């Protein structure tokens, strides 16, 4: 069978998607597994004009940088069209392109300062088993 790769955007105007890549697993506390939508994961900060970033998740801080991908990636979406004879026709649609990622390739370092416990914000998800914390935004 044949699956066509479709693209509505045309060259040049393809929407760019973003990637944040980090080691390990982002693990929300057990109480939040069912309420992930809109949940804050962490704060991504660009301290200077360099393409260097910090990502603060719970008690942990990661240091990383923006890197261009060696080869571009396209984001494809599988689309099923109902088809008269054979039931379903599958197509892949190009929905975006990715050229950079913000990569945190080192293991996180623990923040030493004792986190303030906030009351207004909901508890934050945690990473690598740390307890919830509040960031000083």
């Amino acid at each position, binding site marked *: 069978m044949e699956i066509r790769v*479709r693209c509505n955007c045309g060259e040049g105007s393809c929407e760019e998607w973003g990637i*944040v*890549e980090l080691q390990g697993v982002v693990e929300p506390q057990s109480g939040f597994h069912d309420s992930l939508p809109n949940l804050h994961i962490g704060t*991504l900060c660009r301290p200077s004009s360099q393409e260097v970033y910090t990502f603060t998740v719970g008690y942990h801080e990661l240091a990383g940088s923006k890197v261009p991908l060696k*080869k571009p990636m396209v984001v494809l979406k599988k689309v099923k069209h109902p088809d008269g004879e054979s039931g379903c026709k599958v197509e892949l649609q190009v929905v975006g392109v990715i050229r950079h990622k913000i990569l945190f390739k080192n293991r996180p370092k623990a923040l030493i300062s004792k986190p303030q416990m906030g009351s207004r914000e909901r508890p934050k998800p945690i990473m690598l088993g740390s307890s919830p914390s509040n960031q000083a935004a």
Partner: protein
Amino acid sequence: MESPQPGSRGAEALKNISPGSSISVAYHSLFGPHDDLLLLELDEKLLPDVLHERVVLRGQPDEDAVLCTPSKTYAMKFVGTSNSVLLVPPANHSEFYENPQKNDSNMEEDKVVAPVIKVVSGNMELVETAPRLDKLKSFLSEKTYNFDVGNLEDNQESTIGLYNWNDLVNNIQASDEELRSGLQALSAVEINGYWRLVDGSYMDMILGMLLKNSVLNDWSLNALNEDEVVCTLESDGFPGVLARHCLHTYGTKLNEGMPGRVWKLDEKRVCIHFAKEILKGGKRKLESFMDEWRQKVPDGMQPSFDLMEGEVLTERVGVETWIRAFSVASLPSTPAERFSILFRERKKWEWKDLQPYVRDLKVPGLSSEGLLLKYTRRTQPSPDAEPVFSAR
């Protein structure tokens, strides 16, 4: 619908964090597994083909899919990662459009947010590969076009076991260009919309009739007028499409500038055709084969044994030399299967004998030396002796 502020959310926010500022990375309101979203890594040079809809995935459900550009075939490999890859769509991406007002957390309403739609477990990579054409031959051999079919009235033949172009691209893992050259290499011809192989003895009859007519009508084999040839062969009872196919198979079209289409018969292809016909009966002593061959070919053509490279194997039995048909075209195109058959045929091969049977093998990223290293053992009794190849 409210339009989101440019640069305030989504992938744009991630791309344009101004120095000294920070943004929030959060789960998207539609966060989930989104198994229908795939990442495909590809060379920059393939991007235009993808964006202009010139690529297609081909394969049966039980095969690993390949991606085909108009001219090349790529295997698709999934490369997993143990890292967490957080995928952030652009804010105005219609499908994942979020109304910022919907965000129930008041604190984050005016904060810049990069929403994560899914955590990606890996991406697809492309590796250029040889087209998988072996199926093509077995498909087209299911029902060859023979004398009986040629004499049927138009469209009376059942189409079961016949393949049109769409059937082929749905089944064969090759790009359009590679499929076309595969069809050409098999001397396939499109008849009534279906791609066919013409039965060898039927081709022999047509070529024989063409040569007979050329003597009768005093045609030059170096300048055959297509209309004249087709018209004459049709009156002899052969379908026009096969008369034309005969010119394609055994001839080359001459440059324009002459009235009508003019063909020159190719000495090599015609001679090989007759040699194969002779060897159909089994192995022959070299001398008697050469005698019969010289008689069979049309006047003016000089059959030389060199032409038979890749078509026959030679064996010495005492003082006699025997030859038999062994055509490279009949061998599989995947290197492992090809070498296995070659070494079943002969345990040891000298380079000059082996070369005609392996030179057409092409594996992207592997040189012909690399192929030999991978599939053969090379021995050289002394430095000035011919190397001998055996199975690994």
